[in-house]
């Protein structure tokens, strides 16, 4: 599938990215430079970096594959699942965190609540981020192994070493500026596939016609069944207005896909998305490195604008793939097959560079943020409170290197444990505690009466709820208990994040009200106050 020109493009891209990261690293002097880029980042770079970090390598191929199987409903993750939360973040939470001058979200938790809440939240984030580095490496290496026949171990080692090298050297600034290059390559590579695909199919109007024909042709396949909006008798699946099922964004409650509208609206738009854009250290950290409060706000607004077009370049190619070839046995092969058929040799290298860019931009962000949490919330908080800024820089670099080693080891272990279900647990890890952590942020910022005891009990209770619901949605567990799975849709992580959030919120309210309030002089400066009109 690939020829020498493709590999030349990929090698040039990788060499350029690593060189840029190393060049930036030459200027670092302190821990503040390493973790917050010396608070010097411009809005445009942060905005692209936010989007590049959010789109992982597996998303480039995975989202297209999901669009192939489930249709345009997958675009909800970029639209209502990003834009509203980013706008709220831009005008309330991000400038608020920036003004506080914190390094991490757990640091805010201690200022507002207590050290136990900081420790619990930091532990969960560190566990998630360190695991996620391994998951990203493993899932991507598995994908390129299946698609291009590359050796999985060599892929894991190669990407981890390259991303680790410039992240160690350049910290957050290197992560953000390399993300800008990676974001441009990623969007450019996918745009190429979109434009060539639409030209070949004859335009947007013709795509709708082609989708309708493909759905009719594939009525008996697993693909159309998965869309879940067909006539129960197994008949035609387009609606009376003639909209192809694959072009629908809002799916009914009883769809067999993982994207019923209540899950998307209540679980994604109201809980997981704000939790991600407002409370995810890997995302928020780059805004904390903004050169001004205005740049921090503008970065999120710019990111929200970019997010509006992302589904066009990552999801619509999946629809094009379905329209061209509705009977692929494996949805993961939808985008690679489309690329192989559409792009001439030489340009395929651009798409592969986009895939590697998406992987590196996520791995570098999680490495840097995990290292920040380790250094700020564990090392400086509990081991060496008096450590100099120069020492924190060294600790940051060493911990980044250690996380690379951990990520590689974990990725290799995952390969052996995939069948045991361990992989599924780690894949869903973020949904376990994001809802509870978001509830703590909301109450911490807006409710004076929320206290440390309520927050700690609420967080533990919320995470326990997530774990319980996850277990009760696993067939193996429920079979051994002699009961039906609790949820009827595939991957119900959107639903258990809602319940975990609600349980945390209820516990925070009840326990805070029956225990002693925090001192007013501690809480009052940390509450959100809207600026006067000006």
């Amino acid at each position, binding site marked *: 599938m690939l020829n020498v020109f493709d590999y030349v493009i990929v090698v040039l891209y990788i060499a350029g990215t690593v060189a840029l990261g190393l060049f930036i690293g030459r200027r670092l002097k302190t821990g503040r430079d390493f973790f917050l880029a010396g608070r010097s980042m411009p809005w445009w770079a942060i905005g692209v970096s936010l989007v590049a970090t959010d789109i992982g390598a597996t998303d480039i191929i995975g989202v297209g594959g999901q669009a192939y199987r489930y249709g345009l409903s997958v675009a909800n993750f970029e639209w209502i699942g990003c834009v509203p939360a980013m706008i709220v973040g831009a005008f309330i939470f991000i400038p608020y965190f920036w003004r506080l001058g914190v390094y991490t979200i757990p640091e805010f938790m201690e200022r507002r609540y207590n050290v136990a809440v900081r420790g619990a939240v930091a532990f969960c984030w560190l566990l998630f981020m360190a695991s996620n580095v391994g998951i990203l490496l493993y899932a991507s290496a598995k994908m390129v192994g299946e698609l291009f026949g590359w050796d999985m171990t060599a892929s894991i080692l190669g990407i981890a070493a390259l991303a680790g090298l410039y992240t160690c050297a350049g910290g957050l600034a290197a992560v953000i500026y390399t993300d800008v290059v990676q974001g441009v390559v990623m969007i450019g590579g996918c745009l190429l596939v979109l434009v060539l695909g639409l030209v070949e199919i004859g335009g947007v109007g013709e795509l709708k016609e082609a989708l309708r024909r493909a759905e009719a042709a594939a009525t008996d396949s697993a693909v159309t069944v998965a869309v879940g909006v067909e006539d129960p008798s197994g008949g035609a699946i387009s609606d009376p207005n003639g909209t192809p099922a694959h072009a629908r964004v*809002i799916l009914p409650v009883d769809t067999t896909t993982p994207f019923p509208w209540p899950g998307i609206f209540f679980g994604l738009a109201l809980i997981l998305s704000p939790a991600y854009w407002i409370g995810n250290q890997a995302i928020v950290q780059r805004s904390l490195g903004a050169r*001004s409060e205005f740049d921090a706000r503008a970065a999120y607004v710019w990111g929200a604008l970019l997010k509006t077009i992302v589904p066009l370049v990552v999801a619509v190619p999946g629809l094009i793939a379905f329209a061209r070839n509705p009977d692929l046995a494996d949805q993961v092969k939808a985008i690679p097959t489309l690329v192989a058929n559409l792009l001439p040799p030489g340009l395929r290298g651009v798409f592969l560079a986009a895939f590697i860019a998406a992987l590196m931009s996520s791995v570098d962000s999680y490495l840097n943020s995990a290292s920040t949490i380790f250094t700020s919330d564990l090392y400086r908080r509990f081991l060496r409170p008096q450590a100099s800024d120069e020492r924190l820089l060294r600790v940051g670099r060493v911990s980044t290197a250690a996380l690379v080693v951990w990520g590689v080891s974990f990725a290799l272990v995952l390969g052996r444990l995939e069948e045991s279900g361990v992989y599924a647990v780690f894949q869903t890890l973020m949904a376990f505690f994001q809802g509870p952590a978001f509830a703590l942020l909301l109450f911490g910022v807006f409710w004076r009466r929320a206290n440390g005891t309520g927050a700690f009990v609420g967080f533990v209770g919320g995470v326990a709820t997530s774990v319980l619901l996850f277990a009760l949605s696993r067939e193996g567990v429920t079979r051994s208990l002699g009961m039906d799975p609790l949820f009827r849709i595939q991957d119900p992580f959107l639903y258990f994040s809602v319940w975990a959030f609600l349980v945390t919120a209820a516990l925070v309210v009840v326990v805070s009200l029956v225990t002693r309030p925090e001192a007013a002089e501690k809480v009052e400066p940390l509450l959100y106050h809207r600026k006067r009109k000006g």
Partner: protein
Amino acid sequence: MTFLHRIGDAIRSVLQEVPLWGARALFVALPLALLVWVITLPRSETSPPEGARGTGGNLKLWASIALGAQVLIYLVL
């Protein structure tokens, strides 16, 4: 069937009664409400302190475009 199953089934039946146009209304209402909120934000929260970046520095405008696009998407698709 456990107590949790009964709660889930009750919620599912309530949600099944909501027609898809009702769900669509929710998807449109969220960005629309935020759009109204953004428009009413004070200038001090949507412009740089020096106030001299022209249209490019008017975050109210860009945020309104992003949210307006969401309203349009969920009205049309």
